[in-house]
């Protein structure tokens, strides 16, 4: 064989090893004949559908997060690799994969075991009313439940199907401009398994942006219900198992801050799950959380927000937008104040903060 022919063989080998892995992705996706309303109904039932697989989430939000909010900053600003076994909403396991370790959440009924290989400990907790987002909240199914299922149906439309994890996934779009003019989310696109309703890919875009601020994609997908044994964990003797009563700063504030937020802020209703001092308001693409902070919690956050590009300060608030997520801290340096964060513009967050200051009720000492 001559030299040019040998190099042709090598070129063919290169083409084969490059194109073979790409071939499944290049297959066109089959369109579904289901209407958007039917897909929305299917999506609402997805939490009860069993599945397992591998998920990657990529966030581009540069949150002004420090200390207690560090984990939130990495969840929303980095790529996270997750391994999921989902039996139903009451029984699931989500492992966050790290290069040389992992941190896992195993959930049965209202009890969650958070295992960390790094810390060699398992924290057992009952699900609180309010907590900060964690890895399981970044699954396409959970994001869709939060942003798409609760959205105004008039803002929901069909988009072309896409092949995701080998499945021809039906597409739905929630248009921010049709949902609420105050939302900072331009649109949320979700593609779901038309057979089970399980969302396989979700992309959330900030208003006016062509690149997604947050992407969550199921890369490997098995639609069968995984066995219960894979969710259970019996810690070994090497693992420190302990019960925790307070999960994070939001849970702590919700349980122990001696006040109650008003029933409505910035025209958004308090969600029924807000039974403590922390308020979660709104639905669909317009949602916010309001957390009362003490001075030693509020001051570092104010400093972080202040150095964020495009931070806007008023006499008694400072706020900034990180992609579609607005963060605003009320009060002045040295004082406590409300942390208000959500998918609303800064004007709406300022209105919410003012409503919180005016409408929050301090509990009498005997009720604390």
């Amino acid at each position, binding site marked *: 064989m001559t030299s040019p022919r040998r190099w042709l063989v090598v070129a063919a080998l290169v083409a084969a090893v490059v194109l073979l892995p790409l071939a499944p992705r290049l297959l066109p996706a089959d369109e579904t004949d289901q209407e958007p309303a039917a897909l929305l109904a299917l999506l609402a039932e997805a939490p009860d559908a069993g599945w397992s697989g591998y998920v990657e989430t990529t966030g581009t939000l540069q949150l002004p997060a420090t200390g207690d909010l560090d984990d939130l900053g990495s969840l929303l600003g980095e790529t996270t690799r997750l391994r999921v076994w989902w039996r139903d909403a009451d029984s699931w396991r989500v492992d966050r994969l790290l290069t040389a370790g992992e941190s896992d959440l195993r959930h049965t009924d209202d009890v969650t075991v958070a295992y960390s*290989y*790094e810390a060699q400990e398992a924290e057992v907790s009952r699900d609180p009313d309010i907590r900060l987002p964690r890895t399981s909240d970044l699954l396409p199914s959970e994001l869709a439940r939060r942003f798409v299922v609760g959205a105004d149906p008039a803002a929901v439309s069909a988009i072309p199907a896409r092949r995701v994890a080998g499945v021809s996934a039906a597409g739905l779009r929630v248009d921010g401009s049709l949902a609420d003019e105050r939302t900072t989310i331009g649109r949320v696109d979700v593609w779901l398994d038309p057979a089970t309703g399980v969302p396989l890919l979700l992309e959330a875009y900030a208003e006016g942006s062509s690149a997604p601020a947050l992407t969550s994609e199921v890369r490997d997908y098995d639609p069968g219900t995984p066995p219960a044994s894979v969710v259970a964990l*019996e810690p*070994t003797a090497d693992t420190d198992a302990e019960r925790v009563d307070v999960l994070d700063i939001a849970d702590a504030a919700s349980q122990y801050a001696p006040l109650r937020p008003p029933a409505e802020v910035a025209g958004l209703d308090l969600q029924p799950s807000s039974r403590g001092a922390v308020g979660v308001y709104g639905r669909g693409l317009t949602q916010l959380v309001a957390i009362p902070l003490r001075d030693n919690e509020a001051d570092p956050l104010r400093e972080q927000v202040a150095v964020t590009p495009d931070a806007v300060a008023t006499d008694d608030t400072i706020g900034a937008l990180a992609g579609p997520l607005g963060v605003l801290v009320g009060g002045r340096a040295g004082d406590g104040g409300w942390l208000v964060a959500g998918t609303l513009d800064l004007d709406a967050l300022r209105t919410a903060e003012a409503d919180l200051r005016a409408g929050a009720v301090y509990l009498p000492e005997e009720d604390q």
Partner: protein
Amino acid sequence: MIRVELSKMVRSRRTWVTILLIDALPSLVAVLLSLTAIGPRPGTGPAFLSAVLTDGTLFPLAALAIVLPLLLPIAVALTAGEAVAGEAQQGTLRYLLVRPVGRLSFLVAKMVAVMAFVVITIVVVAVTAYVLGVLLLGNGEVTAGSAVVPGGTSVSGTTLSTPELVGRTALALAYAILCMAGVAAIALFLSTVADSPLGAALGTMAVLIASTLLFTLDAADVVRDVLPTRYWLAFVDLFRDPVLWRDVVRGVLLQLAYVVVFFGAAWANFATKDVTD
């Protein structure tokens, strides 16, 4: 031809000195760990190094994590880089090729000899690490329910029995050997191109350093999955529960692809190359 190359490799003093040098680092780490009892936090430092303080039988894995990123690839690049260019530099290549052996067979024999070197190195490192681990750091045992059994804790926090640990460790060692096949193929190709063995080895190291650097860049996301070092540390996934095969399988296929392409390129370049040295 293969037997000749294997014999040359085994009888070469340099082979054993190289293996000794590679083996020295994890051995030193084992001694230091046993003397100080100070290990890295779990999940930090080389994989599994934190766990060996309580279970010395895991030390072969920690040793693998120590040598795999740098020492072993350097040794493989040097050995494979010398395969053709070294013979040319010593002036023995044309004498080798006048024998009634095809050039493809010559390249296959060189590749087999390099991979045999990798197998011997990893086996020596693993056996040394196991012996040192058990002697200096002790056997591991783990509480499973109410029973205390020999074994260890998986990365997912569940119990792994000794047979499971041994089986998964063997798979991890085999995976590491395969990871070096891609390096060997790249170095062998460069060895057919470069005039000096050092040039071929340095060229291979440049590829691996570039791969390691690009792997950390978000901007290089589109090429990440085809970088030669992309799945090297996926052997950790063999110790999750259940085993996560995703990256291990991808790592195996990627290394096979590198072997096919670069060994093919070495053949294409060398089959009718004029040999004057």
